[in-house]
């Protein structure tokens, strides 16, 4: 079934108007970001409020690398840029991982918020990073595809890759360990789960994937400033997609991002002045009506409303 879905998804750019390709692009980006976030947030229960830090760091490190060192080779630059963005984020995550992962719950969340704000302020105010003036990224073109179709395809591949990684982790040994951490970290450690190592690994992996996605996002815009990538909305939305779809699941981020993107861009897109109010109101309603996420609604129906605290 997933193969059929994939074929349908791959055919989208050839079948619909470019606007819907861009909507699809946004859904894929959001879903992939949600999945990257959930490696740590959903699986291990470490909610980061600051993953936009890695979108921004990935975008700007790759952007600077491509514009300074890879002039005239846009496609190669983009490919290497993905790696640069991912690696820089992985390194940054590795530096802060050990101390910051000792924090739990809301304290970890807030510390990540702080990290992203620090990076955003430095990117914007230290001239060499060009955050305030902005970076014009090399335009990439391949296979004669229009830009929205190209980025749709790139994001589709990225989403599949992130999805496979998340699937492998969730169903592997690490996944079991992460769930144990989420349920009760101290007990997990006593039972011999290498909690510290698992958390750090997931944090770095999550950061690297988010960074690479940030590189793609930046290229899809073509020009970025600090405020286009270091958006607190990004961080919050990654949580929203997961909560809305179903926290800790693999389908959740897809459902959540599809609902939110279609709602804000398609349904409310034409409104001039009250779309933000309606988005907020629907968010409130959705949390109250589907506390276990959309997937929880289905499961609740199937298993006869099993309640779990």
């Amino acid at each position: 079934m997933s193969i059929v879905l994939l074929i349908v998804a791959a055919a989208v750019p050839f079948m619909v108007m470019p606007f819907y390709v861009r909507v699809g692009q946004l859904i894929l980006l959001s879903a992939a970001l949600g999945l990257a976030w959930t490696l740590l947030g959903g699986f291990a229960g470490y909610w980061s409020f600051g993953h936009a830090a890695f979108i921004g760091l990935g975008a700007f490190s790759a952007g600077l690398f491509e514009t300074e060192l890879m002039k005239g080779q846009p496609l190669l630059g983009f490919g290497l840029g993905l790696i640069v963005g991912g690696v820089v984020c992985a390194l940054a995550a590795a530096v802060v991982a050990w101390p910051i992962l000792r924090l739990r719950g809301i304290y970890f969340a807030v510390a990540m918020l702080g990290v992203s704000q620090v990076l955003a302020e430095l990117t914007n105010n230290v001239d060499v990073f060009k955050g305030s003036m902005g970076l014009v990224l090399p335009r990439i073109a391949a296979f004669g595809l229009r830009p929205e179709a190209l980025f749709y395809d790139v994001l589709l591949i990225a989403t599949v890759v992130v999805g496979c990684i998340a699937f492998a982790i969730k169903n592997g040994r690490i996944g079991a360990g992460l769930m144990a951490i989420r349920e009760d970290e101290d007990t997990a450690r006593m039972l011999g789960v290498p909690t510290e190592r698992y958390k750090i690994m997931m944090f770095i992996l999550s950061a690297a994937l988010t960074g690479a996605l940030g590189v793609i996002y930046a290229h899809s815009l073509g020009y970025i400033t600090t405020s286009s990538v270091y958006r607190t909305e990004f961080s919050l939305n990654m949580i929203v997609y997961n909560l809305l779809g179903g926290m800790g699941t693999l389908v959740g981020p897809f459902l959540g991002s599809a609902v939110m993107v279609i709602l804000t861009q398609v349904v409310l897109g034409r409104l001039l002045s009250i779309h933000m109010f309606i988005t907020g109101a629907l968010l409130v309603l959705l949390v109250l009506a589907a506390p276990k996420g959309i997937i929880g609604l289905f499961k609740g129906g199937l298993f006869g409303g099993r309640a779990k605290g």
Partner: protein
Amino acid sequence: MTISRRTMVKMAGGVALAAPAIRGASAQATKTITFGGSVPLSGGGAETGLNVNNGYATAVKFINEMGGVEIAGTKYKLELKLFDDASDPSRAVTLIQRQIDDGVDFYLGSFGSNIVLPTAAITERAEKPMVQAGGGSDQIFVQGYKYMFGFFPRATRQFLSTAAFIKTLAPPVQNYSVIYTNDAFSKTAATGVMNAMKAQGIPMLDSYAFPETITDASSVLAAIRAKTPEALICMTHDQDNLLLAKQMIATGTNVNLLFQGLGPQLGSFRDTLGKAANGIYFQTYWDERAPLKDRFFGTSAAFAAYYKKNYTRPLAYHVSAGAACIVTYLEAMMAAKSIDPAKVRDALANIDIETQYSRIKFTEQGDGDPVVMGPWVGQVVGGAPEVVSPANAKTAAYTYPTPPWAQRT
């Protein structure tokens, strides 16, 4: 390859998903010219966004009340289809694509280079013109875009006339300091200040950069009191400028000349400061008393009167500029005798007309000609914004040096 994809798109026209896209096409039957684009109405630039939006709406309403506009023998009504980009670039590009798909041919612009550039990339690719009165940073005009026209001269050129004015003051201004916000527009504008002042031979004492949001300027002001320049040039946002002025008054920080690019034009700004606002210099592009002719509105004063009849919101130069965007489009269509986007684009590139806002003429790169569309120097006199330079637009005599805050009347 491209052709086959287009065919696919057409075939998919019957698919439910693509249905909303057809609506635009059927609306064409009533002979309507639709203007699309985005304005920021809920993000940071919302205040100016609302002004430009009102300018667009005023022009569209006025011209429709006139019975529409005749282009190459056909009567057209105008329609405005704007959305709120919420200062979010991904939202802006997605929704501008929807308008392209809907068949909208003419675009009005948003604010901030991080919105204007990505959206312009899409309209450029679709070969649809965009006329905007919001993006002024230099990057917008060095991309080689052919379909993008901006009313304001690029930021680095906006201070040329003001620097020339400052040079004429007596006693001569010996030095200056500059404060700017770390964003693309303010930063390039500050570079423009430094270049222009250097060309006039006035040395700089200090420059101070602000982050995007500030809640306090006391330490910068303390530094300024310790090393006081004769002229203080503020290329910061209107909110920061008001905070700066309030704190300067409250701490008795006085300079001979305070120039604030944005802010003193706004009624709320001047009301807050009361008589202390008198004497603050600013940059303006328009005054309702300007002796300008407009094919549709008649004169600047007539435009102002019409606007005031329809809106209670105070007039600002962005309102006039917004209305002039529409008028410029219509003039270009008349000149081209067509509403074909490519022909209208060519007419825009060569346009040289007068509107109630100003004479309109673009540079090769699409920004406003710095001589004919450049800013005037304004000063608050008796609580009202007045033009003090150049001589042909002058509405009041300037005061220099400005008296200390406490002695202003």
